[in-house]
């Protein structure tokens, strides 16, 4: 009776580490399959379309609204100090350093990550992956690796688009509606946003998030129990785990990049 909770804890611990091990083996297997994609880059381009291009609408709309909210909130705070002309810097730095990579990664996990998990999980449930294996085609190299590379390529591009549209949203509210000086908005942004410290660090973050979210999504699909319920659970896990991973990693990366 007393042992039951301890046994349960032990079982869950073993399950967790087994999954972690399987996840890393899959990651290694995917990485090993990447060089073979170079002569068949068309496979990756197809996936960039379904993973990246089809996520554009949600990214652009969200970027616009986030930028507009930043413009409004930033103005209300800055105007108290008579510093509303720095609005461009506030909007741009918030987006490029943090909100661009993080919110894009969260939206990407919800839009593209869940779709990847469901697709791979259903391919497993309908024996498409087994059929490939029996046709002497490695499904990890043929199906998972192109999707992984597509996620890795798409995420920084989507984050860049998110930030660019956000800056325009901030401009629309700050300059267009609240009367901030147009020249100050752009010139201060140009002067204060550093290519290496700000933009490159933001891009690095989105590369890392791209790897992590796509990896989690592919692993959850590939490891899903091949039933309707199993795939639905895996899809939920993808969104939850990748969102938590993005937020946790963001803190670590921010501390490493800007902490000292």
């Amino acid at each position: 009776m007393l042992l039951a909770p301890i046994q349960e804890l032990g079982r869950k611990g073993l399950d967790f580490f087994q999954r972690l091990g399987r996840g890393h083996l899959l990651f290694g297997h995917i990485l090993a399959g990447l060089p073979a994609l170079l002569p068949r880059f068309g496979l990756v381009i197809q996936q960039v379309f379904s993973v990246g291009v089809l996520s554009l609408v949600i990214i652009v709309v969200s970027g616009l609204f986030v930028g507009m909210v930043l413009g409004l909130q930033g103005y209300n705070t800055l105007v108290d100090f008579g510093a509303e002309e720095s609005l461009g810097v506030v909007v741009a730095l918030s987006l490029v350093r943090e909100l661009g990579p993080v919110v894009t990664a969260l939206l990407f996990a919800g839009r593209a990550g869940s779709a990847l998990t469901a697709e791979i999980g259903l391919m497993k449930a309908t024996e498409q992956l087994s059929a490939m294996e029996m046709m002497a085609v490695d499904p990890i190299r043929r199906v998972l690796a192109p999707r992984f590379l597509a996620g890795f390529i798409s995420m920084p591009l989507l984050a860049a688009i998110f930030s660019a549209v956000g800056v325009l949203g901030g401009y629309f509210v700050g300059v267009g509606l609240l009367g901030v000086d147009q020249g100050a908005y752009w010139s201060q942004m140009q002067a204060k946003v550093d290519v290496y410290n700000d933009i490159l660090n933001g891009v690095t973050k989105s590369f890392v998030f791209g790897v992590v979210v796509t990896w989690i999504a592919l692993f959850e699909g590939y490891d899903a129990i091949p039933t309707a319920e199993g795939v639905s659970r895996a899809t939920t896990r993808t969104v939850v785990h990748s969102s938590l991973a993005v937020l946790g990693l963001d803190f670590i990366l921010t501390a490493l990049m800007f902490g000292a």
Partner: protein
Amino acid sequence: MSPPPTPLVEVRQLLFTRGSRKIFDGIDIDIQRGKITAIMGPSGTGKTTLLRLIGGQLRPDCGAVSVEGQRVDSLGRAPLYALRKRMGMLFQNGALLTGMNVFDNVAFPLREHTQLSEPLIRDLVLMKLHAVGLRGAWQLQPSELSGGMARRVALARAIALDPMIMMYDEPFTGQDPISMGVLVRLIRQLNDALGLTSIIVSHDIAETSSIADYIYLLSNGKVVAHGTAQELGHSGSAWAQQFLKGLPDGPVPFHYPAEEYRRDLLTSVVDR
């Protein structure tokens, strides 16, 4: 007199467990070249598992599985994939790739494994589709196909690389009589015309018996009986007779094991 040809597939003392359940408990099976061999048995006896063991997708706990003299159970990845290029498998639901139309599905193994030009691939695909009677359906998506058509497309895909062996996983399940008749005829014709060796896993007795040259009956991890359809009809095994005649009661009881009926009814819920 020349010695009899060696079997294409040899299964020896195969032991395979899943959790604590023994799926196969030391079975021996020979699949003769050029013949259609059926593996039959009730649901859950591991018939599909046997195909996966022959295809090297699963590894046995003990025993040997050889295909054309190569030990599948201990082959490395590269030779296993090379062997699989010469094996075709028809999955129960066809397992067509849903992101591609019929043509691209059949062309898939050709594009993956050969350097043939697109015009040649086109001709080959149309020939394979013609063999299964679906040349006119090349533009359709898998979602537009009936179950029987999907299996025929999958069959065309499985023979695209001209395999030496074809494995059919429950090919007749859930088919209407016409589709069933088409599949039965196709399996026999393809086997004889292409010089294949075929393994059919099924529990559809009439259809399978009509085309199988040799039949193995599996139950509880053992080979219960084997022989031609005629020989099995005269088998002394009570289990084989129950299975082949579809009798509701016999060695496999109608009732799931339970307490004595009268006592069960007279015991109140509180006493349980």
